[in-house]
């Protein structure tokens, strides 16, 4: 006799399980979720390994606050600064959202650098994780470009001249620098096109690039796993050496039991026991 009386009795739980089964049967999401979330991590994994997630979470916060700010911001030389003042002083919690975006930007730069430093000091960029490092370096550059393009949007004197200087630093790069400068500022001098161009780069071009590269970066991390800390490797090596020595000693002991050679091997020569 087969029983159908298994599984949860709570009808809500039962319905939830059925929905989950329905989705999983069609998407395989349970398996993917396990692959994504329930990974083995090496011993010695600590708070230092949370910096990457922190950077990603900050990117999420920047994306959300940025989307909201874009509802009020006007990328035009005549209205840009006024719309910033409007957001800060008049829109409900505008000061809060703008503050989150502004301080989140600085925090993201800081966290990204700390994350890079952690990876560098841990040696986590080594084989087979080189491509994780390369995608991370691309993310670093895109984060810096976010800082540059976002800074101009406030359109006050400091933003204007600091960005003039920054673009001229690009433009004074050898050979292609002058072209990069012209492309960035949409012509030989800063103008209305520069502001809307920076706005487009800041809110469409680079966020798309960052999201794509975060996906790649995460794929590599999940595929290859977190690298163990250098001291864990050292502990492993010591452990391995100790095991090798033990095995070697055991072999010699066995050989001594079978034949004439006896322990310890250091005092054995030509199968003859040598007294010390």
């Amino acid at each position: 006799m087969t029983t159908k009386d298994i599984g949860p009795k709570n009808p809500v739980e039962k319905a939830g399980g059925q929905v989950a089964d329905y989705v999983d049967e069609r998407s395989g999401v349970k398996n993917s979720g396990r692959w994504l979330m329930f990974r083995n991590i090496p011993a010695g994994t600590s708070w230092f390994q949370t910096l990457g997630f922190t950077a990603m979470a900050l990117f999420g916060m920047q994306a959300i606050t940025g989307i909201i700010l874009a509802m009020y911001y006007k990328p035009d030389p005549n209205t840009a600064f006024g719309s910033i003042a409007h957001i800060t002083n008049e829109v409900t919690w505008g000061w809060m959202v703008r503050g989150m975006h502004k301080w989140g930007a600085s925090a993201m730069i800081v966290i990204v650098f700390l994350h890079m430093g952690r990876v560098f000091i841990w040696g986590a960029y080594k084989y087979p994780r080189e491509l994780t490092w390369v995608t991370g370096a691309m993310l670093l550059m895109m984060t810096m470009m976010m800082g540059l393009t976002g800074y101009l949007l406030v359109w006050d004197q400091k933003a204007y001249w600091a960005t003039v200087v920054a673009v001229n630093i690009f433009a004074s790069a050898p050979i292609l620098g002058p072209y990069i400068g012209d492309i960035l500022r949409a012509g030989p001098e800063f103008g209305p096109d520069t502001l809307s161009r920076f706005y487009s780069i800041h809110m469409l071009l680079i966020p798309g690039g960052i999201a794509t590269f975060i996906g790649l970066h995460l794929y590599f991390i999940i595929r290859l796993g977190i690298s163990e800390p250098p001291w864990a490797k050292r502990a492993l090596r010591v452990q391995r050496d100790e095991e090798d020595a033990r095995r070697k000693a055991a072999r010699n002991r066995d050989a001594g039991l079978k034949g004439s050679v006896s322990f310890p091997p250091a005092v054995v020569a030509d199968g003859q026991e040598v007294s010390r």
Partner: protein
Amino acid sequence: MAEDDPDSGAPGTQAGPYEGPRATDFTPEADHSDDPGYITRTRFLATVAIAGGGILTAAILVPVVGFAVANPLKSEQWRWVDIGPASDFLKNAPPYANATPSTKIGEVTSLAVAGTNPEADRRIYLMFGLVDPSAKPIPGPDESTAAFNARFKAWAAGLTAADMDALAIWNRCAHLGCPVAYAAGSQGFICPCHGGAYDSRGLVIGGPPPRPLDRLDVKIVDQSQQYSAADVASGKDRLSLQQAIATSSNPKVRMLVGKAYSISAEQEPFPLHSPGEPVTGTLSNLYPFV
């Protein structure tokens, strides 16, 4: 031979030496799928799909990238701009009779450039002054005031239009493009961003700028005269500074500002460079396409 002889009967049902076909008996049929050069239907269609996709992508990307990138690379258009009667700019011109050390020798005028942003302090400074500012006498250590005044008066009386110069200096710092300001007290230009310092002719006297301040071409023309386009192109319409000073009371004598250019420390003209780029020396070779 008995019926149940294991050596007789159909092959496969009875034990015994195998007499069926063997793999070594066949010469393998020539199969195009073994030939790496053979284009199968699948390979052909895959190639067509990739090439077609590439062409379609290019058809979208080429105009888009051109729109975003090529337009800013267009070369700048320059034209002569009439900035006013020459008498507005050629103030305190020679001759100087009875000059004292406090007498103004020439004058600096500042002109805001109608830029893309009204807040942007982009301007040109019209310098009407000595070709060699260092020629101006300074009091000697043991010289009495009366003796110095007499020496200054004699020097100033000897000045002619040939000792004077009219320059249009662009206030874009040659370091990284901040707006420099003219400091009348020190008779030079100071950049607020990184401390670049220039003398009254825009030559570097301190700080990081790799070359002097850029200049704009200036000319003084008598607009009551008619000139052909060829004469304008060859510069025949330009009045010399001497002629301009002599006729500057005529409101038809106008000052025009034209194309910007960079200069070396020796005041040799060069094509306009971006800030940060030296025009002479080894490092100038880093910017071959300017």
